[in-house]
């Protein structure tokens, strides 16, 4: 598949602050590409460099086969942008704002269809100030789609929304992908990146520390699986530590053991054999896999919290 956006050695410096530090990646056609990271990681600056809002200090960016700096006007016509916390005109109705933006892009106004697609058809005659936070975010998505763009940028689309409003926004992003649009979005919610994005770039302190599908990011960790078990008698940890693919054993709550395993398909049969030999019976068994959050913690050394 063709690359819709390519970023090469992008660097942005604000005085002494290095906001984006030598970042390179490419976004494929039709994918939902996520940039995940804590506040101040450089996500928004990276996005705004690609959108043409911010002039990079160094590096090359191409969007839809065009040079982002040289062909900025042509690029603007084919991208849709939802900015973080941006408002629209106070005294115009939703329909009037969408009609005005359709004029700006010199394309046919389809405000009714756009409002229907984001579930705001009943508020067509209302002004922005009458909308709830979730409705406002949905409207900014409608406004980003006025020109039927090939590439859509969403900057923290669900920041500050309640869980229900967040779900309804996720549906909109999924719908965009189904329509064949490419989406580049930033987020600092792990579960958002996990459930929406085809690929995720993890950003920290201006750099990309990892980039892959959410599943591969987790898999790339050395021993991402956790086996928690409890026995009907007392024994030491040495026997368990010797099981195949087990890398570590720690004490869990209530006398349980927590085994770290690089491959549970080898560890579990070995555990069964060991139980038969040692005569112990299981009173508890849980097998689970680390989440993207654990991967993030391992990669950046810090938790992802607002």
């Amino acid at each position, binding site marked *: 598949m063709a690359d819709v956006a390519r970023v090469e050695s992008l660097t942005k410096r604000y005085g002494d602050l290095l906001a984006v530090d030598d970042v390179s990646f490419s976004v494929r056609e039709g994918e939902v590409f996520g940039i995940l990271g804590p506040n101040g990681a450089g996500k928004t600056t990276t996005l705004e460099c690609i*959108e*043409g*809002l911010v002039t990079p200090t160094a590096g090359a960016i191409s969007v839809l086969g065009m040079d982002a700096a040289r062909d900025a*006007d042509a690029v*603007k*016509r084919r*991208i849709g*942008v939802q*900015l973080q*916390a*941006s*408002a*629209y*005109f*106070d*005294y*115009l109705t939703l329909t*009037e704002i969408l009609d*005005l*933006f359709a*004029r*700006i*892009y*010199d394309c046919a106004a389809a405000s009714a269809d756009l409002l229907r697609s984001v579930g705001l058809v009943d508020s067509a005659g209302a002004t922005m100030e009458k909308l709830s936070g979730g409705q406002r975010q949905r409207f900014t998505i409608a*406004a980003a789609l006025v020109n039927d763009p090939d590439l859509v940028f969403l900057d923290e689309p669900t920041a500050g929304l309640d869980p229900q409003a967040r779900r309804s926004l996720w549906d909109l992003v999924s719908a965009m992908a189904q329509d064949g649009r490419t989406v580049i979005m930033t987020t600092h919610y792990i579960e958002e990146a996990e459930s929406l994005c085809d690929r995720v770039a993890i950003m920290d302190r201006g750099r990309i520390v990892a980039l892959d599908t959410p599943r591969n990011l987790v898999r790339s960790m050395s021993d991402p699986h956790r086996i928690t078990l409890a026995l009907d008698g007392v024994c030491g940890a040495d026997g368990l530590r010797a099981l195949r693919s087990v890398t570590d054993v720690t004490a869990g709550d209530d006398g349980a053991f927590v085994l770290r395993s690089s491959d549970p398909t080898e560890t579990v049969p070995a555990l069964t054999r060991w139980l038969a030999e040692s005569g112990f019976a299981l009173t508890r068994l849980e097998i689970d896999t680390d989440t993207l959050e654990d991967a993030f913690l391992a990669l950046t050394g810090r938790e992802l919290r607002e």
Partner: protein
Amino acid sequence: MLVLHLTVANLKMILRNRQALFWALAFPLVFVFVFAMIGSFSRSSAVTVGVVDRAKDDASRQLLSGLDAFDVVMRDDEAQARLDARSGDLGYLLIVPERLASLARDAPPASVTLVYEEGRQGAVALAVERALARMDLALAGVSPKFALNTESLASDDLSFAQLALPGLVLWGIMSNSIIGMAVVLANYREKKIFRRIKVSPMRARTFFAAQVMAYLALSLAQAAAIFGIGAAVMRVDLSGNLLAIGLLIVACNIVFLNLGFIVGAFSKTAAAASGLGNLVVLPMVMMSGVFFPLDVLPRIVAAVTRFLPLSPMVEALRGVAIGSKALSDFPLEIALIAAWLALTSMIAVRIFKFE
């Protein structure tokens, strides 16, 4: 055309912001009413003539008919009337002795007394003298061979209210254009609407032109309203050429809008824009001959303020709207306005960004 569509959208936004619209009109109109009141007050106090008429005969009636042009108040109590004249409640006090007609016939000269504040000269004393002279001639049976016609120079003799009205109009459109425009721009910046526009293909000059056209339409309506209401309330005769007045207002208002763009470019928030806008507006209003003529300022200050944008505008609009002069009578003023137009346009276009 995007620019027309955007102009209409801007006008909608202006008209829907009811509170701002109300004050844009109400503020200058409050001053129109205040100035109208000051004007009528000063007119009535100047010409009140108290008369103590003890004669009440043909001669006194003839004398008093000569004072028709003034506001005459008949008084009975001479002592009280003299006190009122001293305190200023009466501008003049005319005292007519008993039996004026018979005194003139039997023991001339029969004298009447006119009491007025020292240094106060004028029309009332002249009118009394003229009436007495006419009565002398009539008594002698001589018909007058000479007569004096008086003509007041209405077009040059402008009242305070008449002088003030064009300045109030300019002040109204100026404060609305500079502060209104600056606040709108700062608001767009504060709410990041500019950033949203910047990622769209809209050009800065399209945005600029649509803002200017919308505010020009508003200012022309505003000027018409203040001129209209002011002329009615202040009894000002608007004899000027409407086209010349309109052209002048358009040119002046573009200068104001450019200044608004410049102020807006330097203001991070709407509150800052309002403050900075007032800093530009208020000194100009004070120093450009809106409220008092430039001649009363110290010579050095006047020499500087004469070149502020508002000064030539007030001078030219006053002449064109009230004094029935043509634009060509103000070459210096028009040149100054044109210079400000060019300068502010250049700076505004260069400084404005969607940031």
